[in-house]
């Protein structure tokens, strides 16, 4: 299992408790549909796409997603979140080949 690069971005960078912030999760993933052919070998490239994504904030599920192959390569998932005290935001995804990946950041509201 390869380690994938992923990133959680929160905008704005400085936020207060109770503020609504923009959260985007990016991951380097091929998102193969299983319908494409390799131009050299003329063989079908097997499908490998993200199945589900889950946003967890302090152990509470905020957002879940069912994903299909129509999403772009290296997908981005952007949504909003209400800051509710300091803690941890973790994003988990699993793909069609059974790969599971988790990324987390600390939530530190100021003021």
């Amino acid at each position, binding site marked *: 299992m390869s380690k994938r690069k992923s990133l959680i971005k929160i905008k704005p960078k400085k936020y207060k408790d109770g503020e609504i912030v923009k959260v985007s999760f990016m991951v380097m993933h091929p998102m193969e549909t299983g319908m494409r052919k390799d131009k050299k070998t003329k063989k079908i490239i097997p499908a490998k796409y993200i199945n589900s994504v889950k946003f967890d904030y302090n152990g509470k599920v905020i957002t*879940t997603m069912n994903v299909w192959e129509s999403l772009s390569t290296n997908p981005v998932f*952007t949504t909003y*979140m209400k800051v509710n005290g300091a803690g941890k935001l973790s994003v988990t995804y699993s793909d069609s080949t059974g790969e599971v990946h988790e990324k987390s950041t600390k939530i530190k509201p100021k003021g």
Partner: protein
Amino acid sequence: MQRRDFFKQLGAVATIAAISPAISFAAEAKGPKSPNALSYKAAVDAITGKKGATESSKVKLKVPEIAENGAVVPVTVEVESPMTDSDYVKAIHILATKNANTRCIDVYLTPANGKAMFATRIKLGDTQDVAAVVELSDGTFLTASQNVKVTIGGCG
């Protein structure tokens, strides 16, 4: 037979002859079938439980009118909603009407989101409509759609 009728029939035969090889060629060129293939109508029926969704200006779908590259088309869906415990957006579904698998993503939101918005990037195989179906907490379904012209397809 009158001369007029004769030309009508001749024209009909000619168009059939011209179309039929095109149809068979298109079927061959498609290649392997998607295991998750689903038509737009079947997908909407599955999401709404055959209730159907009503068009609404509350749902704001932001998609470029002309996408040069079909492999990366940014999509933003925003819904006017207070996002309180009693009134919030339950789910946002993004559909591409002519892709082999219409469904792109289903997003299930909670009041903890604070704002009903979702953005991502999708692949479009051809010029088609992109639609968003939104489920509210009271069980109603709203929809919005927009046509996107794709210069280079993003699949295959």
